[in-house]
């Protein structure tokens, strides 16, 4: 059975695309046939993060409009088997995404391409693009930074997920939504400068999928066009791999959430 997952946040620049790339790659590494779709019409970026920007021929809107079929538009990843990318179009026409069109593409990925997972990388905001990315979802990953505006926007998105998805409209109740707290800095939390994972969880009151530390590895990965989960030596890569495992039902302790305790000397004289 194909599962459709939306990666969403309300606020922009919090790590949705980074997360979509890592989650899709992680699922494909586990053997699941996975497509990651960029819903950010007009601001295509997932192709860069996945490192396939020079191989884009057709995009999501081309498939919706029938200019290309799904097979022609999907880009097969060169590093990981079972991984496919469907880029966003660069059109500035915000009405290019229609509900029927998106449904057609998702059905083709399910029926013709036999995907196990479809990851929908949502644009920021709570407008049409974000609503389209979320509408058909069976599950949601809410990406949040430990910062007031991001937490507030996530709460709004959680509210939207509870009422504006196909499952909600059909009366099947809320889709499972889990929190991914990214750009986390245990040092700053310790100093009382940043909301802690407990604080954010208490406010948003949804299950925690994972905590991704603020990490240079994310920038390195985007520079190289290689999803950070492939950087298995890095903290962020490992945190994403853990999150993928939890997504699939494994129970793992949360790493990278507490500071490596300094010795007595450090505690007495440290900043």
């Amino acid at each position, binding site marked *: 059975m194909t599962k459709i997952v939306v990666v969403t946040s309300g606020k922009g620049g919090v790590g949705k695309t980074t997360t979509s790339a890592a989650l899709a790659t992680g699922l494909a590494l586990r053997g699941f046939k996975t497509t990651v779709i960029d819903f950010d019409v007009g601001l295509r970026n997932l192709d860069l993060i996945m490192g396939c920007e020079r191989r884009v021929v057709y995009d999501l809107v081309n498939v919706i409009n029938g200019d290309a079929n799904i097979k022609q538009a999907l880009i097969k990843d060169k590093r990981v088997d079972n991984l496919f990318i469907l880029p966003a179009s660069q059109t500035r026409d915000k009405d290019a995404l229609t509900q029927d069109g998106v449904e057609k593409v998702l059905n083709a990925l399910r029926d013709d391409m036999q995907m196990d997972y479809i990851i929908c990388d949502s644009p920021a905001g709570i407008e049409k693009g974000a609503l389209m990315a979320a509408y058909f979802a069976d599950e949601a990953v809410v990406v949040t930074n430990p910062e007031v505006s991001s937490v507030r926007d996530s709460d709004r998105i959680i*509210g939207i997920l509870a*009422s504006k998805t196909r499952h909600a409209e059909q009366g099947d109740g809320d889709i499972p939504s889990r929190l991914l707290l990214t750009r986390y800095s245990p040092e700053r939390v310790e100093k*009382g*400068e940043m909301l802690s994972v407990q604080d954010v969880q208490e*406010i948003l009151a949804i299950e925690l999928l994972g905590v991704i530390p603020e990490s240079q590895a994310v920038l390195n990965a985007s520079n190289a066009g290689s999803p950070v989960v492939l950087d298995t030596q890095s903290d962020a890569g490992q945190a994403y791999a853990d999150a993928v495992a939890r997504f699939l039902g494994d129970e793992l302790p949360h790493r990278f959430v507490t500071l490596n305790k300094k010795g007595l000397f450090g505690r*007495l*004289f*440290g900043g």
Partner: protein
Amino acid sequence: MSIFSYLLPKKQTSASVAKERLQIIVARERSSRGGPDYLPQLQEELLMVVRKYVPVGQDAVNVQVDRESGCDILELNITLPEDS
């Protein structure tokens, strides 16, 4: 944390201020969620009417719909400044 921070009285950190503010705003926004679409507009217009007579802040008018068995109750709360 250095030894000095154990000796000083605890002052509120910026993170705890953030948490308190978030708890308040999120609770408020949740209460108007799921209500009819006209609610924010109604609240806005009521605020303008009240302001014709009393200078009140942005938060002074609170509108909320409560569902009780059989009927919806529109609850309207207007907080006036102390010296009016």
